[in-house]
Each structure stands twice: as structure tokens, then as C-alpha cells.
């Protein structure tokens, strides 16, 4: 009898774990990041639901960008840092020694704060990620590039000039090109690091609209300075301060009835 109870308990737990895994694309466990002696990210436990937009807000220097970059291991290259804890992508810890970093970065795409197209043609920018992943078939490339540019809501503006230089596009177009480039390699998660901070309101609106559209296919994490933006586009919001996760909840709740005083102070603009 007792044994059976244990088994049932195990099965139930296992089921619960499985539903957890189905629901969540990524999760961090006791994540700590240091730059030298600076403890930049402190003990973060956070789960990211599939096909949702998760916004990360907080004052400058709160560790939100560092946290974001740890999700696709870009911290390994951008700033030398030390990391502790786990980050699961599906069931796999992306910091395990047997993990191929290159593959992780293909699965978890990233769009940077400042648009950074390569000094190549529009076509070649989007083709780049496919080419480095070994795709040579011209027809496939063309189809894929059209698809990605359409997904990034840029196709109509550039379809007749795919061979012109990407740097001749406007700022907002360049950023959407970077999004198209990230989408082309079929990532599962797309990370946005303040993607609109250098853009005018019209371009920003376009990108926000786009992110709403993208969550149907991808899981999205976006760091933003702009609280209205977080409120407009995200399903969940994480509030970071001084490297700590102060509050993480549904966006509606964070912006209407935050449970912590600090969160309320921040979103009502009392500091930050």
C-alpha cells in the first residue's frame, strides 16, 4: 500500500513536471552572475512561458541586460563574466559542458539595442544565418528570405531592392532587418535588448506590433526601458532592481496591483 502511494506520488510529480516543461520554454534556477567582484545578477528564479512575451523592466544598471544576454550565452563573448546556477531550455541546462554554444545561439536568437546589420546587401544580411548553418540551395534561400522579411513586416518596403546595401535603410527598417535576420534561422526563443531605444515613435509602434505578431510562433523576452511599452506588449513582466528580481507576474497585475512597494514606486515613476 505504502509503496503504491509512493509510486502514485511519483507519477503525479512526473506529470506535473511534464506539464511544467510543456508550458515553459525556458527557466532559470538560482542564477547568479558576476563581473569580477561585481555581483550583477542575484539568485534569479524565473520561468518563461511558451509563446508569450516576457518584459524585463528596471532602472539602468539593474542587471536586466546581463540577465537577457545570459539566456543565449552572449555574456560569454560580450563581457567576461562568471555564472552560477542553471538556465534550462526545454529540459537542457544551456550551461552544461556538453552543450554546443553555437547551437544554443541558433535556437535562441537575439536582437540588439542598436541595429547592427552587416555591411552587405539586404538579401545577404538575411541569408547570412542560413549560410553559416550550411544552407546553399538558392531556391530555398530565396523563399526563406522572403518569408523572414514578411514575418518582420519589411518585405513590402524592400522587395524590389534586395540587392541594395542594408546600411542605406532607415533606422527602423534596419532594426526590422535585424529581426528578419534573427527569424531566418528559425529560433525557438527571440531575445530583444531594448530594440526600440534608438527609434522614433512610428518605427517603435511598428516593432511593437510586430512583436505581438511574432509571439504566435516564438517565445519572446524583451528588455525595455519604457514601461508603457512593457505594459502594451507583454504578457508577463519581471521587475529587476540592483540585480535582484523584485517581482514577476502577469503584466496586468504588475501595472495595476503590484504586490511589492518597490515595484509600485518604480512604475508610478517615484524613482528610476
Amino acid at each position, binding site marked *: 500500500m505504502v509503496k503504491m502511494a509512493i509510486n502514485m506520488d511519483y507519477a503525479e510529480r512526473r506529470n506535473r513536471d511534464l506539464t511544467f516543461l510543456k508550458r515553459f520554454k525556458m527557466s532559470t534556477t538560482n542564477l547568479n552572475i558576476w563581473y569580477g567582484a561585481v555581483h550583477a545578477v542575484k539568485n534569479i528564479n524565473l520561468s518563461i512561458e511558451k509563446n508569450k512575451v516576457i518584459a524585463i523592466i528596471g532602472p539602468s544598471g539593474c542587471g536586466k541586460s546581463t540577465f537577457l544576454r545570459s539566456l*543565449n550565452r*552572449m555574456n560569454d*563573448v*560580450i563581457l567576461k563574466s562568471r555564472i552560477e546556477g542553471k538556465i534550462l531550455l526545454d529540459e537542457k541546462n544551456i550551461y552544461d559542458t556538453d552543450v554546443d554554444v*553555437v*547551437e544554443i*545561439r*541558433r*535556437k535562441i*536568437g*537575439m536582437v*540588439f539595442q*542598436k541595429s*547592427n*546589420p*552587416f*555591411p552587405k546587401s539586404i538579401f545577404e544580411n538575411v541569408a*547570412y*544565418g542560413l*549560410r*553559416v*548553418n550550411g544552407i546553399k540551395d538558392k531556391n530555398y534561400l530565396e523563399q526563406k528570405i522572403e518569408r523572414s522579411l514578411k514575418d518582420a513586416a519589411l518585405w513590402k518596403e524592400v522587395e524590389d531592392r534586395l540587392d541594395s546595401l542594408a*546600411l542605406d535603410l532607415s533606422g527602423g527598417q534596419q532594426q526590422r532587418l*535585424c529581426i528578419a*535576420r*534573427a527569424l531566418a*534561422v528559425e529560433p525557438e526563443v527571440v531575445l530583444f535588448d531594448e530594440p526600440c531605444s534608438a527609434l522614433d515613435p512610428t518605427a517603435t509602434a511598428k516593432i511593437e506590433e510586430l512583436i505581438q505578431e511574432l509571439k504566435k510562433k516564438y517565445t519572446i523576452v524583451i528588455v525595455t526601458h519604457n514601461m508603457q511599452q512593457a505594459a502594451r506588449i507583454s504578457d508577463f513582466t519581471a521587475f529587476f532592481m540592483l540585480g535582484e528580481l523584485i517581482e514577476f507576474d502577469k503584466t496586468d497585475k504588475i501595472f495595476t496591483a503590484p504586490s511589492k512597494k518597490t515595484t509600485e514606486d518604480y512604475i508610478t515613476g517615484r524613482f528610476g
Partner: protein
Amino acid sequence: MRLRKIKEFIGFGIVRLATIIILLALFAILYFIVIRGIKVVNWQFLSQMPHSGMTAGGILPAILGTFYLTMCAICFAFPLGVAAAIYLTEYAKQGKLIRIIRIGVSNLAGVPSVVFGLFGLAVFVKFFGFGISILSGGLTLGILILPTIIRSSEEALLLVPHSFRWASLALGASKWQTIFKVVLPNAVSGMLTGSILGIGRAAGETAPILFTAAAFYTTKLPCSIFNEVQALPYHIYALMTEGVHPKAQVPIAYGTALVLIFLVLGINCIAIIMRNRFRRRQKW
């Protein structure tokens, strides 16, 4: 108030004068060489073999020799220097060892050129048994210009914005792919510029080829890299220090100097034009 103006006037006067003196020195050299050399330079001078014990004829073998030597030097030094620069800036963990290597490279640039000549004699001529030849001289000149190439290649690599590397890595490119597909194509013009300046330097050096490649006088053009050759700088040296007909030899020496100086200036101009073109084209 007046005093301040006077001070300023004197201060600017001094720096302006310094600039003028430098320009004067450059033009004096050019003027001096052109005036003395122009008389002998003509098509025959450029296209004929020397004869009558170097008192008459042209300097074709020296021009060709200098061309072969610098080509050999650049073929050896460019890939090596670029590879070293890639390692130093892209791969190596920045730390004490890399600092020491960088200091070493800088010091290599400061070694007197005659020492390179002796090194080339000991290593390429004797140890590897290449003899006195284009190969030995070219390799010696290659080592001489290696620091220039490494330094300019490193600078060119560092000028490529990090955001390009990040974008590439974030798309699932490996480090190697990132370097070859994104970083190098954007750095190659800078690397070439530095290397062309290196060629200019190599073309003008006498000491490194003195014991390794230069022939005092050849009657036939070189036909393999194991032949010794005449070269422009050494030809001037030979004309001025050896031989028994100074009256006939000195004008030829100035003519040779004129050819050499315009060759080097020409090479440098190409480098500068390339650099400007490249700067105009890059928008990041």
C-alpha cells in the same frame, strides 16, 4: 592681455615653423635627387642592362630585382602577419603573455635593419642553404616588415565594430565563421593598406639584402628565386662606393635614386588612396 596675445603668437609661430622645416626637408631631398638624377633617366635607362662595368646602360635588372624581392617578401609576410594578428586580437586570451608578444613585435620593428641582414645570412643563406638569392633576401625583408603588417592588421581588425561579431555569433555562427565571413572582409582593406606601406619600406632597404640577395653586377636577368639579383638601393650603394669611374657612376647613382624614390612614393600613394576609398565606403 597683450602679453597673452604675444605668447600665443610666438607659440603658434614655433609650431608653424617646425612644420615648414619638415616640409622643406622633404622638398629639398626631392629637389636634390630630381635635379641630379633627371639627366640620366629616360626609357633606355629603365629598360636596358648595365654595361661597360656599370658606367653606362640602364638599371633594368635592379628594378626587376627590387620588384622580385618585395613580391617575395610580401608573399611570405602578409599571410603570416595577418594570421598572427587574427590570433592576437580574436583568439588569444588577453593577458600577460599576449602583452609580452605585442611588446616583442614592437621591438622587432626597432631592430636595426643590418641585424636582419646578418640574421638572414645565418638562417636563410647558410642554415637553410638557400644561398645568396631572391628567396633569402625576400624572406629577410619579409621578417623586417612583419611588425608593420601585424600592427596594421591588428588595428584593422579592432576597427571592425564588435556589434558585427555579436550579430554573427547570435545567429549561430561559429567563431571561425564569424572571423572569416564578417570580420576579415571588413578589415581586409586596412590590412592591405598597411602591407603596401610595408612594401614601400622593403623596397628601399639596403642592409637586409646586402648579405642575402644582392649582386654587385649581373649580366643576365634572374630566372629563378635561387638566383642572386641586383636591387635599386644596393645598386646605388655599389655605384657610390665601388668601381673605378666615379665620374660616370655618380650620375647613374642619382638616376637610380630618383627611380627608387618615385617607386616608394608611388607605392605609398597607392596605400593612401586605398585607405581613403575604404574610409569613404564604410558607413559604420
